């Protein structure tokens, strides 16, 4: 195990003023607005009654309530983890709301019927127009299904019928619990067990909504599925729950993108995502995360404690995680693959950007149990301002998993001299036939590169954006087209004011 650490601190006093000025400029957060949709809260605090309230609101069957209560009791006995390289004030879990929903529950046949206020927000977010084109009847427009999660409750689900014709079930998790209880029961909590970790247990107790996808045997999902999460109500923890099941020989690509309005209060987010892929199935899961990172002084911002795990259960199954993480004040996230199937494949492509006072501790776990299973990890960390960016990754090879291969590449790019980049790889190999490769680099954007790009006509921020996008290209090219463009813009926005 190695621990490569890079941190430089010089001229702190001198650059402090500059950094603050630059940061103040960057604080004009693009998506820093809020909406006026009325919210119905559960009472502040977390007790069994809160859990019952949420379950009741969702019209859940008895078994679900029991499952939640069991999780809640377990959570009460657990300790919040502190091993990540992040620091934040102690969270008072009794001083937060655990359920907020739009007052009017709207069921829509199409996005045209969407509440104009929500529609306005989505427009402001620049949500890809693909959906709108399809809705307007534009021929040849690429179909992207949207299960819009607004303040915890799905308010619009489109294209459900076309998906159903293909046999694909794409529902909010609450609906799935009611309509497909057997499927949900079979897998919920099987990939990420209730007792897996503190935040996962919390999620099990109070998850408000999320997405359920079921792709039957041999079906290639006819469109990219996408969900936009938003956190809107002040002081409301968000606990999304996602479950995707890909049966034998099926394929699905799922996109998840998020942004949140500007708030002073810290907002806790603890999602759980479970994926399972059977023989020859493939799941591609892409995330662009742009939650409010706090202002230039490090005040506010989302706390993002996410548990994402995929079970490559079947032989020759494959799961790819691609993530672009630009937001949140604190990120704690390790999308992982448990490679049980023979010849199964796990991939993790990540760009994590931190600026100002953001802290990210993110990476992956590749657990090789199947023979000939393979994994690839490409992590690109970009640190600016006074932020801290840590890659933490585990590659484990079980004793019976022969001929396992892993390739890991972790690159860090530093902007300025007050940020930190850390690479913490853990490698545990119990089978001697494994081939494990790990490469790591740390570099700074050089003055030569900046001057060269500026001499050709690019402004300083354009030059930084170009160089950073080049650095992250190996990951960005893994994203579906609609997301790649948005992600490039996000990288540039996230680093505004970080140089000069």
């Amino acid at each position, binding site marked *: 195990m190695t621990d490569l650490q890079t941190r430089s601190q010089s001229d702190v006093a001198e650059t402090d003023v500059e950094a603050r000025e630059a940061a103040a400029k960057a604080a004009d957060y693009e998506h820093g607005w809020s909406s006026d949709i009325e919210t119905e809260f559960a009472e502040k605090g977390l007790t069994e009654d809160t859990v019952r309230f949420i379950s009741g609101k969702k019209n859940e069957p008895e078994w679900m309530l029991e499952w939640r209560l069991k999780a809640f009791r377990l959570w009460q006995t657990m300790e919040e983890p502190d091993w990540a390289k992040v620091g934040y004030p102690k969270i008072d879990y009794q001083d937060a709301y655990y359920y907020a929903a739009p007052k009017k529950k709207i069921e829509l046949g199409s996005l045209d019927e969407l509440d104009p206020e929500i529609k306005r927000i989505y427009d402001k977010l620049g949500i890809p127009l693909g959906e709108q084109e399809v809705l307007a009847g534009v021929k040849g427009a690429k179909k992207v299904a949207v299960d819009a999660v607004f303040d915890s409750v799905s308010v619009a689900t489109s294209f459900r019928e076309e998906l159903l014709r293909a046999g694909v079930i794409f529902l909010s998790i609450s609906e799935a619990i009611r309509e497909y209880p057997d499927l949900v029961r079979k897998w919920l909590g099987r990939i990420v067990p209730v007792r897996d970790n503190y935040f996962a247990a919390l999620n099990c107790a109070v998850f408000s909504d999320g997405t359920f996808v079921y792709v039957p045997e041999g079906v290639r999902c006819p469109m990219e599925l996408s969900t936009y999460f938003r956190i809107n109500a002040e002081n409301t923890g968000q606990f999304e729950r996602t479950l995707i099941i890909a049966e034998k020989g099926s394929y699905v690509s799922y996109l998840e993108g998020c942004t949140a309005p500007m708030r002073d209060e810290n907002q806790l987010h603890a999602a759980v995502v479970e994926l399972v892929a059977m023989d020859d199935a493939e799941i591609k899961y892409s995330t662009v995360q742009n939650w409010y990172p706090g202002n230039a002084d490090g005040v506010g911002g989302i706390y993002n404690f996410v548990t994402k795990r995929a079970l490559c259960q079947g032989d020759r199954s494959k799961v790819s995680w691609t993530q672009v993480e630009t937001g949140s004040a604190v990120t704690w996230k390790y999308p992982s693959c448990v490679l049980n199937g023979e010849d199964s494949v796990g991939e993790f492509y990540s760009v994590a950007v931190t600026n100002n006072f953001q802290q990210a501790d993110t990476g992956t776990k590749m657990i090789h149990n199947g023979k000939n299973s393979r994994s690839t990890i490409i992590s690109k960390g970009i640190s600016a301002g006074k932020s801290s960016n840590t890659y933490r990754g585990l590659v484990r090879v079980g004793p019976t998993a022969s001929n396992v291969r892993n390739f890991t590449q972790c690159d860090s790019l530093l902007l300025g001299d007050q940020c930190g980049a850390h690479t913490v790889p853990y490698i545990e190999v119990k089978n001697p036939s494994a081939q494990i490769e790990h490469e790591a680099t740390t570099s700074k954007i*050089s*003055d030569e*590169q900046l*001057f060269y790009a500026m001499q*050709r*006509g690019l*402004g300083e921020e354009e030059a930084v954006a170009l160089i950073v996008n*080049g650095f992250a290209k190996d990951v960005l090219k893994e994203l579906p087209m609609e997301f790649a463009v948005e992600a490039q813009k996000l990288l540039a926005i996230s680093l505004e004011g970080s140089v000069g």
Partner: protein
Amino acid sequence: MLEITNLHATVGGPDKPTPILKGLTLHVPAGEIHAIMGPNGAGKSTLANVLGGKPGYEVTAGSVTFNGQDLLALDPHERAAAGLFLGFQYPVEIPGVSNVQFLREALNSQRRQRGEEPLSGGEFLKLAKDKAALLQMDMDMLKRQVNVGFSGGEKKRAEMVQMGILNPAFAVLDETDSGLDIDALRIVGAGINSIMRSPDKAVLLITHYQRLLDVVRPDKVSVLADGRIVETGGPELALRLEAEGYDTVMADG
């Protein structure tokens, strides 16, 4: 077009500034290709970098006027948009960024600064193809990452393709001929002629060798030594330098 008057510049930061340019005066009118020659350490590259606006160089006295504008008051990208191109002695690698992407963004950024419409992808590709053909550069090379894995000669040719695409009014070419074999030298020289030889353009051509000047025939040749222009003449001055060396010519001067 470019008027450099009594220019003094230092490098090394405020702690221990080292004077490099010590009262350099040079006027280059439109339509002129002006070669700058001189011994190592005379300040040739410093001159190029100061004109480009590279951080780390401090102008302590003097002025530079470009088409009537105070060049030294502009940021590097504003100088580029105003029409100044700097051909780098050591072109810089930008991993993960293709030449096409780099140049399209650079050109459109210049155009925006000048209040012009940006070029579409198609328009830009056509322009890039034309200029690459001029320099006998394969379009595949333009799709590769900026200067990554390029040989010395390829980098210099790529610089010239960049110049062709950006189409500047004034080019400062810093030892563009270094690292080129005879064939590449001829191609690059022909490129400079076709891109920059024009009544409304001008070039400052920094070089050590006559062989580039055989292809790109300069209108004027100046000798830069110890931070000043010590002699200016016609093309014959370069031939004398080549034959007799800097010491003799400067002693005569």
